């Protein structure tokens, strides 16, 4: 019902905006574009997931800190690992009122052939945060370092089972493959099990699988309780924070690679230049507020701001690197 009212309201606003087009143009001529109606941020997943939380928290900070004085509504478009939401945004070409939140699957899902839209069909506005990956084993495992594990895998890649929550060819699989490849393991033979019902940690703790490829935030408490050991995190340098700073990086163990799970906001294709500038600026201001910093700290999200131009370059590199890995794994379609 609420959505219906919102929809009605937006339709009326749209009609009014169309009638009043001349004044809108005057605004953009000054380069001072401002939203004149409510903004929709699509989270292409269900409520409560990473995308959804980021979108809701950003909307909250943007509104409550007075950065944007129009209402911001978060809408969930669930399905296809993001593909359903992207297909929806693709119909909003040029609209400065339809943004969405996205992250690494924006690269992997199209490469896996599961979405006809890739990042070039949208306008990257700003990246805001990043998480890093971690590779964990049971506390009583024989592997003390990442190299111990990879040495065994070089001898027999099929002797080790890796578990993660994303599907094969996506994040948890790719980051492990990236590190294993750097170490010289035959990555086409890695046994990867995808567990999408939340049983990854269970499977690791009861010994069904050997290695858990996940996010740093998932492992901290289990390490503190002495249940598991982190062999490596995927950041360039050690991360800050109690317990977290004890986790070695791959780089310091001689495996010279990194993996970053970025998360940011995009708009539809042909987002007007002025609107792009406006949102880029607002997201930048948002990441500088104390409210946002506190939310980041609670969730363990790292600060990783990139503006439009830098973001575009970064995405291009990400596609190259993922594509190379997927090619080797034989997954690119």
């Amino acid at each position, binding site marked *: 019902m609420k*959505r219906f009212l919102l929809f009605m309201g937006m339709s009326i606003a749209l009609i009014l905006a169309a009638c009043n087009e001349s004044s809108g143009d005057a605004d953009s001529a000054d380069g001072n574009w401002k939203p004149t109606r409510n903004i929709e941020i699509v989270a292409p997943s*269900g*409520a*409560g*997931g990473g995308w*959804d*939380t980021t979108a*809701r*928290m950003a*909307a*909250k900070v943007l509104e409550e800190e007075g950065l944007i004085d129009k209402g911001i509504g978060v809408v*969930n*478009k*669930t*399905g*296809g*690992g993001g*593909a*359903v939401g992207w*297909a929806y945004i693709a119909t909003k070409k040029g609209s400065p009122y339809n943004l969405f939140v996205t992250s690494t699957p924006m690269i992997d899902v199209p490469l*896996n*052939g*599961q*979405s*006809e839209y890739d990042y070039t069909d949208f306008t990257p506005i700003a990246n805001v945060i990043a998480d890093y990956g971690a590779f964990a084993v049971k506390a009583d495992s024989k592997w003390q370092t990442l190299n111990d594990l990879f040495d065994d895998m070089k001898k027999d890649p*099929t002797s080790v*089972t890796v578990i993660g929550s994303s*599907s*094969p060819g*996506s994040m948890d699989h790719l980051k492990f493959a990236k590190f294993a490849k750097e170490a010289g393991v035959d990555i086409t033979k890695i*046994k*990867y*099990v*995808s*567990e*999408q*019902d*939340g*049983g990854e*940690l*269970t*499977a690791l*703790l*009861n*010994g*069904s*699988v050997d290695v858990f490829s996940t996010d740093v*935030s998932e492992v*901290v*408490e*289990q390490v*503190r*309780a002495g*249940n598991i050991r982190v062999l490596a995190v995927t950041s360039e340098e050690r991360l800050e924070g109690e317990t977290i700073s004890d986790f070695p990086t791959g780089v310091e163990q001689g495996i010279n690679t990194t993996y970053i799970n970025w998360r940011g906001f995009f708009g539809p294709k042909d987002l007007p230049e002025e609107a792009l500038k406006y949102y880029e600026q607002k997201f930048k201001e948002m990441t500088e507020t104390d409210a946002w910093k506190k*939310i980041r*700290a*609670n*969730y*363990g999200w790292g600060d990783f701001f990139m503006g439009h131009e830098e973001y575009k370059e970064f995405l291009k590199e990400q596609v190259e690197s993922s594509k190379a890995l997927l090619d080797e794994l034989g*997954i690119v379609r």
Partner: protein
Amino acid sequence: MGVMDGILEGAKVAFSFQGILFVLMGVFLGTIIGMLPGLGPITAIGVMIPISYGMDPNMALVMMAGIYYGAIFGGSTSSILLNAPGVAGTVATAFDGYPMAQQGKAGKALAIAAVSSFVGGTVGVIFLMLFAPLLASVAISFGPPEYFALMLLALTAIASLSEGSTIKALISGTLGFMVAMIGIDGQTGTSRFTFGSASLLSGIDFLVIALGIFALAEVFKLIITRNESDSGPNKNIGSIRITKSEMKEMSGPMSRQSVLGFLIGVLPGAGATIASFIAYITEKKIAKNPEEFGKGSIKGLTAPETANNAATSGAFVPLLSLGIPGSGTTAVLLGALMVMGIQPGPMLFTEKPDLFWGVIISMYIGNIFLLILNLPLIPYISKLLNIPRPMLISLVTIFCLIGVYGISFNTFDLYLLLAFGIIGYLLRLVSFPAAPFILAFILGEMIEQSVRKSLTISNGSFMIFLERPITLAFLIITVLSLALPPLLGMRKKIKSIE
């Protein structure tokens, strides 16, 4: 700090004015959410995360937990009155609950559901309190092969859900299995049976199937048979009083299934749905009059309602003692804790005893509130059946449409809903039972994925299913439960021939 001090700290939280207020708010919201299909507890808690930011974490968790178990408690209502299960955990409730309502005993069915839910929930909380830290090791004892064996056992319910023809039940189950395969395959990332449609990539949602096959199919039947006087929902609500002999009949399933339901709930990923199905089949297996099941049996209603609520309490064991989410809802609860600056994990028990025990103790209060809230409401809620038939039909249809649209905001799902409504009606027309279809649909993907995960782990060797004791035990029970009844039947026949 000892456990006793922790419990006292928790009691302080739960019995504070705020604590009682928030648990009341939580269970009230939960009941309403449970009654309306579509807006499930996951969405409700997800949407509340930004609101709870800045709230006292104890209170926020007390309230969110209330929404969770309140939704399972309230979920039985639409199953019983409209044959429209809103969450997977209440599908089995419709098997005997809806026939009871049709016999003019809607009031009694709702009362039985409320009392069984209360008993299941409360026994579950007592177990949670006594054994949560101890059961942590049980919670992680299940790997993919164990899950496969457990689900296979649950799947044998197909045999007991057949009304007459076992072949028809098996065909119906196979169809459900096939529908479950639609979408991206978790182990290879390949899309199956999606025909290039992005809307099918994540598979078909449970609600689309449940509301289509059960509720819409019923609506179609009502429309087509509108001129026959004896069809459709009985307007008679009947007394809500449960007699002594009925109470006696309920006590068996309640005492058994609150324990069994709790234990299944402890396993991450199994949860209320599997608990309710296993409860239903075990009660049917040991009942003196199994032929009453599916026709409005009191035991058949009591068993799944007790089990699904006990399982909900059980799901808090891995959540609170290990920081492992056992279901979608508890995963979102974990996310909610994080935004409040609390790291859920195995250390919660020692570092935040007020939170750990506060939630558990608030669940006692919550269950009592749920009973007090639900019982007096029954006469009013069941008045729904007094609505004139044409209006009721339109209402149920709109209710289904909104519920399904609310999960994805995708109109494609509405067409799917309609299609499954028609399929459901056709299945009835040729007397194929719908229950095996939905059971196989719910279990299908989990069974398939757990087999394949197991085989990946074992490098393709099927021995993995025989080498692990828990798996082997479940497989033996499964075989026995399928083979014993026909064997016993044969022996009887042979004896009678002699």
